[in-house]
């Protein structure tokens, strides 16, 4: 007997979904791996392990990591303040956290470059100490912090909002003061969300181009991030080199994607309890 579903359109919608997905996402991505497969090992290695490339990887990973770390700490702070406290401008602050999501990266790039330049509104406070922000790694750090800002905040906020008051009350009745309650009870329970936010911010920062390209001096071997290196290779029609680098970045991105999904699965397991 033919089985049919009460709700129609399964085949149609699934088919369309797979078709569109394949067309826009999968086939082009496959092209990258296909192209790389046509390279010899030497070509691949040359592109990926050249001194310029290695310097770029070191820079990208290093600065992205620190930017994500700063966002981890301050993102938690911002989320805490937004969820737990009432103060004038709270709602405005809450909405503003989304700015990095909504603002085009080029706009962020030129603006950050200007503000943190030696004569910029913020940069001028650091100039007397000999600290240069724009056009140095520090500037890249600022841009990547900007770009990753909402990730930790928005991942942690729902967890804090849903946090059971009674757990904190229980800790209080057992003799823990606020600091101990935070350190031993709240923080461990928020940790999966924090790690997820960190991973998201890190992954985003790794691939970022627009906001970095304006604030960095983009000198090869010194201040060139991997996306910019790829862009340069494309401009020089070195498709092989660009693709090789892209494949490495893609593999790393996919690893991050799996790690993030795993972390979210773990954190939802923790939450699925009375």
């Amino acid at each position, binding site marked *: 007997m033919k089985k049919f579903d009460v*709700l129609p*359109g399964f085949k149609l919608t699934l088919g369309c979904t797979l078709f569109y997905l394949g067309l*826009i996402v999968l086939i082009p991505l496959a092209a990258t791996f296909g192209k790389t497969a046509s390279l010899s090992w030497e070509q691949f290695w040359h592109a990926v392990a050249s001194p310029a490339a290695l310097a770029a990887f070191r820079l990208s990973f290093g600065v992205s990591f620190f930017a994500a770390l700063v966002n981890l700490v301050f993102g938690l702070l911002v989320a805490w303040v937004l969820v737990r406290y009432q103060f004038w401008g709270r709602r405005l602050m809450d909405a503003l956290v989304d700015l990095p999501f909504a603002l085009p990266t080029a706009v962020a790039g030129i603006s950050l470059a200007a503000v943190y330049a030696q004569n910029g509104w913020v940069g001028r406070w650091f100039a007397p100490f000999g600290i240069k922000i724009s056009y140095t790694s520090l500037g890249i750090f600022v841009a990547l912090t900007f770009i990753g800002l909402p990730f930790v905040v*928005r991942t942690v906020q729902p967890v804090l909002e849903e946090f059971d008051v009674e757990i904190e009350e229980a800790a209080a009745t057992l003799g823990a003061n*606020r600091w101990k309650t935070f350190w031993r009870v709240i923080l461990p329970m928020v940790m999966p969300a924090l790690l997820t936010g960190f991973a998201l911010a890190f992954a985003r920062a790794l691939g970022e181009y627009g906001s970095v390209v304006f604030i960095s001096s983009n000198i090869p071997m010194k201040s060139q991030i991997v996306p910019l290196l790829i862009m340069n290779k494309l401009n020089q029609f070195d498709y092989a080199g660009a693709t090789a680098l892209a494949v490495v970045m893609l593999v790393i991105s996919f690893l991050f994607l799996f790690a993030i999904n795993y972390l979210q699965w773990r954190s*939802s397991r923790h939450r699925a309890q009375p």
Partner: protein
Amino acid sequence: MQAPSTFHAPRHVRRCGPTTEPLFVRWLLIAAALVFLGLFLVVPLVAVFVGAFAKGAGHYFHTLSDPMTVSAIKLTLLTAAIVVPLNCVFGVVAAWAIAKFDFPFKNILTTLIDLPFSVSPVIAGLIYVLVFGAQGWFGPWLIAHNIRIIYAVPGIVLATLFVTFPFVARELIPLMQAQGRTEEEAARVLGASGWQTFWRVTLPNIKWGLLYGVILCNARAMGEFGAVSVVSGHIQGVTDTMPLHIEVLYQGYDSAGAFAVASLLAFLALVTIALKAWVEGKGAALHPPGEKIST
């Protein structure tokens, strides 16, 4: 499993007592948060608008009415007008398939849909060059038929489609999953056709999530820089979008001009944020706090 969406329900105020910190600690933390956000968000935002008028209002309007700027604005709007509806429809279709039915490997499908989010914009542009560029898979065929995709508008549209691909879908999928099938099943039992069920039952339930996804999709579509930069060829007047035009002006040392164009996009960003906050309020009214909307 999805990367978390940015939609969240509003919070409750904590009562005072054993679960709040002493007053000075609270103010300290609030101050620290404000300084952090001020440094990274507020100051750069304000700088855009101030920088735009650095050479006076005359220069500002002169830049905006310049034919190159106008064509950049037109191209940006055209791209958004194509990309947003396409990804909107896709998002609804994908969410319907995933949320209302059970089939194996659903998780893999959702992860695949999320893929463009984790790909660097430059790589997003690169992959289309590899497919449609002169040396790409379809390169020779396209040249033979005199179709230009890379370094032309179609390439820009495609690259933008890629980067904005998941926005609507990842808002709708968790939302529709949380809502389940029961209302649609009830409608079917009462005799509604597939279309009627969708229009009269599903669509009203998802309208705020849909609007939300569309707003974000639009913001990204108009603001995309890296991917478009790779595929566009920077042909002024033809393949320059607004973000690319900002770069052109900035590299040309017309920073006031660059900020002028940037101010339009920054204004759009503020509208996006405001709409987002408004929709969130509406969505929360439909889904009372306690009911999770997104993963």
